[in-house]
């Protein structure tokens, strides 16, 4: 399922839709989250003319913070096991209709840094972006995003994933879309050369059929989910406290009892 690949530890998710499906953006993202059992932790900005008021944007941030604090004080609430909310932004075309690119980037950054926000979803359809600098703005959003899903055709999609450690993967998938299900399957090399854009890098070789390789290096869907969910020790930045040095004296330490600066009359 697509939701296994999208609902991961990556915080900023950009969906670039080349099929003009802006109208179902909210439903699409909500369904992905619901499939992963996160359908109740969703916050979305009001759409339409409400977007002209900066207060609506600030209210969403405040709302996330307030609700998160309330949930922490309520131990019976099941959400306490996962921190923060999934924020679904309006489509980029709607945002650009009322706000400047600078404001949008700034807001995206605020959401990214907020501890009360678990994930941010932004939907962009190039066919709906009529801003004169739309290409640059979309590139800027791609730069900020940690996960970029590109819905290329009815049957193919690509997924760029940036890990906190710096690793980047770019994979292409075959997809089978029905009204209620979005099934994906890694696209094997050379299976569909007509639809693959020249700019994307294929990283899904079929190793099972290659006897020359010693190790199985490709990952299936479940393994990708497990890998994305794992926080490595060096990524646990939130656990550090005040940078205190904890020193355990050794028996052979040679301490000087006298003050070496005694003669300075400080």
């Amino acid at each position, binding site marked *: 399922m697509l939701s296994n690949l999208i609902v991961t530890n990556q915080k900023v998710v950009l969906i670039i839709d080349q099929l*003009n499906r802006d109208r*179902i953006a909210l439903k*699409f993202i*909500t369904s992905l989250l619901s499939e992963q059992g996160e359908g109740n932790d969703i916050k979305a900005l009001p759409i*339409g*003319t409400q977007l*002209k008021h900066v207060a609506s944007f600030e209210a969403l941030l405040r709302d996330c913070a307030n609700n998160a604090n309330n949930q922490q004080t309520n131990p019976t609430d099941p959400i306490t096991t996962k921190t923060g909310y999934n924020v679904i932004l309006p489509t980029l075309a709607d945002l650009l209709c009322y706000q400047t690119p600078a404001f949008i980037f700034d807001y995206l950054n605020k959401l990214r840094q907020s501890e009360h926000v678990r994930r941010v979803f932004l939907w962009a359809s190039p*066919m*709906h972006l009529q801003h004169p600098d739309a290409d640059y703005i979309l590139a800027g959003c791609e730069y900020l995003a940690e996960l970029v899903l590109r819905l290329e055709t009815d049957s193919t999609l690509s997924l760029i994933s940036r890990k906190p450690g710096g690793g980047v993967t770019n994979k292409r998938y075959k997809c089978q879309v029905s*009204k209620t299900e979005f099934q994906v399957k890694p696209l094997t090399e050379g299976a569909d050369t007509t639809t693959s854009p020249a700019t994307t890098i294929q990283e899904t070789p079929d190793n099972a059929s290659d006897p020359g390789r010693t190790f199985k290096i490709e990952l299936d869907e479940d393994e990708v989910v497990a890998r994305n969910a794992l926080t490595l020790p060096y990524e646990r930045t939130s656990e550090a406290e005040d940078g205190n040095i904890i020193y355990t004296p050794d028996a052979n330490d040679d301490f000087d009892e006298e003050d070496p600066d005694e003669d300075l009359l400080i």
Partner: protein
Amino acid sequence: MAASVLLACGLNEQKLPGFVHISEESNVDGSFLISCILGQRLRISNAGTLLVCLQNHYQHYFNAGMRLGYNSNIFLGKTFNVIDVLSDMARHGLSSKWLRSPDGLTLTEQLVKDIREQLEKNYPNRSSYTILIDNLSILINLGASKQQVQQFCLDLADLAKAHDNLTVITKLSNSDIHPLTDNIFFKLGNVRIQVLRLKSGVFREVDGKLLIERVLDDEGSYSCEQTRKEVLYKVNDRNVKIFNLFLIGVKV
């Protein structure tokens, strides 16, 4: 007179979808659709209609209506109201409120304000209400940016969502020059009617093609089902004829 074209477009019913967009390719004239829809709405008893004249002044719509078999003047001021931007500009010149931006409002903001006023005055007394805007390209010609036109349409779409039985019908000409703007307007509603010229050139029996795209209401979470229907049309003096594809050809 115009029943067949409305039937083909699915606009012959009393209750219309909330937002309908007509996009007109360069070198074709889809104004007949506005006149046809106007006639159909006026004939429904107690249904209110507001016409925003941007491409033609009101007299044009009256004349077109007389040819199609209805007299819009009978309904004027009762169930039918007009915001005649063109006539106002012709009458007042540069001092027209549409050109000098009073109260610091832009052209589109002024238009939204006037539409809201009309709606507040007339909507409560009517069983349904239709706002016809002909056409949005003129707003761009009058100096509004595409972003302002987009905001204008979002305002109208919000009105349609906020009021039951309110339909907004917009038209954009030269849609092939503004494809992104056209896509955005289609997104606001579920129905788009494209008025297209014949790719094979000019033909005496047929003026052009109508492509009717309709997004079905029970759209799913991951895909939206869309129906497309194509018909040919011929605008005659007193009626509009519709032909199904492949039913008409050249006899050698």
